[in-house]
């Protein structure tokens, strides 16, 4: 990206104030840098050349001290607000990215972007801190201090200014040249580096396994050999990577040296006063200082810049429009999929699926993993529009409505969905499970076997659960989620592999729960692996794997209507 992407200011509002502050401080710093050089040169020149007394120079030295304190204060103020701005901007971007990614929906997250967004939201964006704290201020200084000092040098001594202005463009030219020359080899080096590095980690990660086979002593030599190879590869890359740093240093120090020599030679000729010479000498390194810092901080900032780019890419992905049709009461509504196909990386999953869900009826969705069972659920819930076919909802005496056109705010509250990994909010178990009264809750808990779990908890129903249900085993969490689904008055119930992580007794509990839901006239969809669960359904619908021929779908009544 450009050194300062305007989108950063658009998406992270707190960056605006900070940038303004940084620019303000940058302008002040430029003034103080020039003042310090002139005051120092004046005091030194008068003392060394004219033998001025301390008393006569006292005001100059006083001002010099004040300028020094001023510069130190500016740096302190910059530092004071840089970290705050970085944290706030990262927070804003993080909330924006997470909110937008969730709005884009689970399907968007599932199509390969998910892990990237997770990395971005947990660690990636933190890399913006060095960008804000170190890189950005130097970037601003190179736009204020560098031109200001060049102008002052020009006013004092045009020859020195010519040397400086002459060398300045060489810096980017050489940097680009070296970058071009080394591009290929350093990429090769980086690949070798990361491969060797991951091989060492692989050996260490497998250590428990090697121990189980009594073969742990052999690979020690290999760890060292891989480490040495990794070092050689890394050094090869660094030898090239550091070249650009060397050119930068060489150009800047050499041009300062040239300025010094040229001033010296002209002083001998009497073409220049000592005071002017000293001022230029002090100013010359200041011209290059911000540029050198930008170069030095560039690598530290690239991760952050890349993270910001990735964040903008997420934030600019268009969110599909949500439906607006108010959802009818699902208690007497029929959901119908006809010829539904969703294209994914795994092929057509599902492929031309027909399915009907009606109240008081239990339907099981079976099929091997990867065939599109969960995708089917997402289509039914309106989280995803099918690529072909239609998902519609009909009530007697009304036109069918496409599920995707339903207003989620009126549809989703009528749905109880138990996903494969139940989502449990932190808080007391009582609130989490829900239910109108203690009696109702207790009765539901007996059905799902949660009563035994509650009896074993120190505070019973008042037990505080951590995020994600921390403190409970996976099976216990499943029971909590089941009880909640049972107590929920929602007419449409979707249970995705509710017997996963459960033993035989737990499985019985789930079957009893499903029977209770059917008896209550609710519409139940089961995504099932285990045959016992399939057996309890009124209708079994098979989602065939993508490779299984042209007629992939069969809807078979399992044991007739009950």
């Amino acid at each position, binding site marked *: 990206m450009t050194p300062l992407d305007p989108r950063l200011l658009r998406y992270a509002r707190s960056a605006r104030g900070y940038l303004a502050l940084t620019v303000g401080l940058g302008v002040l710093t430029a003034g103080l840098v020039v003042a310090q050089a002139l005051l*120092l040169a004046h005091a*030194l020149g008068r*003392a*060394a050349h004219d033998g001025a007394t*301390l008393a006569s120079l006292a005001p100059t030295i006083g001002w*010099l001290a004040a300028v*020094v*304190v001023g510069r*130190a204060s500016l740096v302190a103020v*910059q530092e*004071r607000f840089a970290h*705050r701005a970085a*944290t706030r901007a990262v*927070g804003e971007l993080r909330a924006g990215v*997470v909110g937008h*990614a*969730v709005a884009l*929906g*689970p399907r968007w997250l599932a199509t390969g972007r998910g892990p990237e967004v*997770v990395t971005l939201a947990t660690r990636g964006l933190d890399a913006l801190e060095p960008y804000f704290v170190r890189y950005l201020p130097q970037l601003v200084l190179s736009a204020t201090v560098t031109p200001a000092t060049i102008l002052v040098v020009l006013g004092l001594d045009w020859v020195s200014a010519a040397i400086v202005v002459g060398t300045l463009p060489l810096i980017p030219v050489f940097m680009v040249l070296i970058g071009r020359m080394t591009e290929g080899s350093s990429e090769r080096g980086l690949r070798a580096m990361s491969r060797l*590095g*991951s091989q060492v980690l692989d050996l*260490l*990660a497998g*250590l428990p396994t090697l*121990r*189980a086979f009594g073969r742990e002593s052999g690979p*020690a030599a290999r*760890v060292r050999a891989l*480490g040495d190879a990794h070092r050689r590869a*890394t*050094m090869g890359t*660094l030898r090239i990577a550091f*070249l650009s*740093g*060397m050119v930068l240093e*060489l150009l800047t120090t050499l041009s300062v*040296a*040239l300025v010094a020599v040229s*001033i010296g030679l002209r*002083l001998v000729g009497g073409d220049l006063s*000592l005071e002017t010479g000293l001022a230029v*000498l*002090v100013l010359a390194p200041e011209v290059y200082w911000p540029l050198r810092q930008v170069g030095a901080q560039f690598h530290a900032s690239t991760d952050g810049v890349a993270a910001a780019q990735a964040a903008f890419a997420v934030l600019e992905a268009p969110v599909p429009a949500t439906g607006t049709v108010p959802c009818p009461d699902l208690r007497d509504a029929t959901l119908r999929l006809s010829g539904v196909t969703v294209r994914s990386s795994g092929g057509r999953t599902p492929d031309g699926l027909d399915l009907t869900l009606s109240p008081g009826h239990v339907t099981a969705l079976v099929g091997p993993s990867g065939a599109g069972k969960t995708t089917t659920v*997402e289509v039914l819930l309106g989280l995803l529009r099918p690529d072909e076919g239609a998902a519609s909802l009909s009530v007697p005496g009304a036109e069918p409505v496409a599920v995707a056109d339903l207003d*989620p705010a009126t549809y989703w509250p009528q*749905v109880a969905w138990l996903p494969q990994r*139940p*989502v449990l909010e932190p808080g007391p178990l009582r609130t989490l499970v829900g239910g109108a009264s203690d009696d109702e809750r207790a009765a539901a808990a007996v059905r799902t076997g949660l009563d035994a779990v509650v009896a074993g908890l120190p505070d019973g129903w008042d037990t505080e659960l951590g*995020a*994600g249900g921390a403190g409970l085993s*996976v*099976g216990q969490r499943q029971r909590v989620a089941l009880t909640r689904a049972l107590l929920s008055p929602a007419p449409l119930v979707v249970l995705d592999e509710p017997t996963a992580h*459960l033993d*035989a007794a737990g*499985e019985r509990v789930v079957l009893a729960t499903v029977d209770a839901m059917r008896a209550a006239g609710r519409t139940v969809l089961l995504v099932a692996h*285990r*045959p016992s669960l399939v*057996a309890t359904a009124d209708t079994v619908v098979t989602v065939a794997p993508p490779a299984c021929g042209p007629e992939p779908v069969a809807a*078979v009544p399992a044991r007739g209507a009950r």
Partner: protein
Amino acid sequence: MTDAAAAPVTAPAPDERPPRGTLRRAVRMLGLDRRRVLLAVLTGTLALGCGVALAAVSAWLITRASQMPPVLQLSIATVAVRTFGIGRGVLRYLDRLVSHDVALRGMTNLRTTLYGRLAAGRSEATLRVRRGDLLARVGADVDAVGDVVVRGLLPAGVALLLGAGTVAAMAFFWPPAAAALAACLVLAGVGAPLLAARGARIAERRAASARADASAAALTALDDAGPLLVAGGVERRLRELRDADRRLARAVDSGAATSALAAGIGILATGLAATAALVTGIPAVRSGALAPVDLAVVVLTPLAAFEATGMLPAAAVAVQRSRAAAARILALLDSADAPAPVASVAPEGAAPAPVAATSEALAAAAAAGIDDAGIQARALACGWPGLSPVLRDVDLDVVPGRSVAVVGPSGAGKTTLLLTLAGLLPPAGGTLLLGGVEPAHLSPADRAGRVVVTTEDAHVFGTTVLENLRVARGDVTPEEAVAALAAAGLDGWLTALPDGLDTLLGPDARTVSGGERRRLLLARALLAPAPLLLVDEPAEHLDPDTADALVTSLLAGPAAPDGGRRGVVVVTHRLTPLAAADEVLWVESGRIVARGTHAELSAGLLDYREAVRRERVTADQRERA
């Protein structure tokens, strides 16, 4: 992913300060080569020294030139100025190479040490660290310790040497200015880094929990986007995220004032040193104690002398962050080296088993007439050291040719039982003999020669299929490998692989499915030379028929390399195939609640019968369908 009740991790909590000397211990483990370190400090000092010399000589050159001497007198200075100008860049390049080389060598040493000590230490130390944590410690944490060298140790050495050199050179011209410079260098090189580290520590301590909360909220929102949207929990997660980020900002703010002070001090010290040189130098010029040319040198040199100290505050912050990484590495090593907390074994104390005792113990066992190939457990308690046992009172004999199945609800301690029986966890009580010898008295090779365990989280290495199987035994031939894969039901999978046995598996086998991975691990176990195999859920993620066939053939006792039948202990959740087992253990609530043959348990145990019936009924149902 991370929902399993994780074994307690031994790293200190983030708000706890690691003990003093942590970093020193970790850095010592890098085994740095003294000569290389010296070389790095020297080149670094010379590089920055060129910068200081450039400033000093230019100041001299200009002031002397203003006195209009013959040009020849200036020629040495003009050459020196250009030389220093070139020297700085070149030496700095060399310095960066040398110092990175030193650090990388150290990191290789540390990783090798880490591997060696974990391999030789107590096995549960590596077992109880989550895989991701282990990777983070040998990866990022070792990098962080190496970083201490490049960003902390060497720059500090350079700053010290350069500071001392500059002050000494200045003292040659004008001692009072040298004294002021020394004081300012200490202020910038010691005071500022201390303050910077303090500011970072304050912020970090308060920020750690907020940072973790922000990550957790973001993670839940993204992982469970669909369910949250439907259940209406998205707003709440986003609110939590914003709250956590606000707390993070406040925490960062709390350390900002200290950091700001540290940053200001560096600039202040530079200006003060120059001003002090002016104030002390001007009267000295008047009185003739200091030449006017030298005044320029002592006033302008300090402006270049603070480059080395200027890097130190950032270095101090980096070192501060590395300290936590060092503490995590040391905690892992200490847990591997520590003596076993349960001293149920050797009467001479809890010292790690001397391998030399093996032959003695073996002889004693042979004399007592104990079968040298079996597992014998009496009143065995199984559990992780430091936690209460999850399973007690296990009496079990496994000999070659005998098959035992372990079933029961999840979380009953079945995997812990396998690890204990394999001698990888010390018994939490009771006695365990492997071939008549307590496992603590066996060398790892001897132990693995008797019994081999395959847990569900066993590692699949990022190498070929064949090399992955050779983990069991180094001399596995391709024919043996094909046979073992076929025995594990993977013959179809193997023929579909692009390069057969030479196909590369991805890092941690993300390219193979869950069911394939389990069977690959089983094939590996089948190739081990041990007469006893302990296998954890080999049939998970498989359809019922395949699963049952696999468990049945495993319980039939695979052939051992010497031709006899092996003894097996299989943990499984499928009951139908257990007719093939000699004995079935039903484990629940921390004990063996029932044991016997499949027929006996079906007849006597209601729960068991019911579970078997259900598996059958549903299988029939499926066939009819």
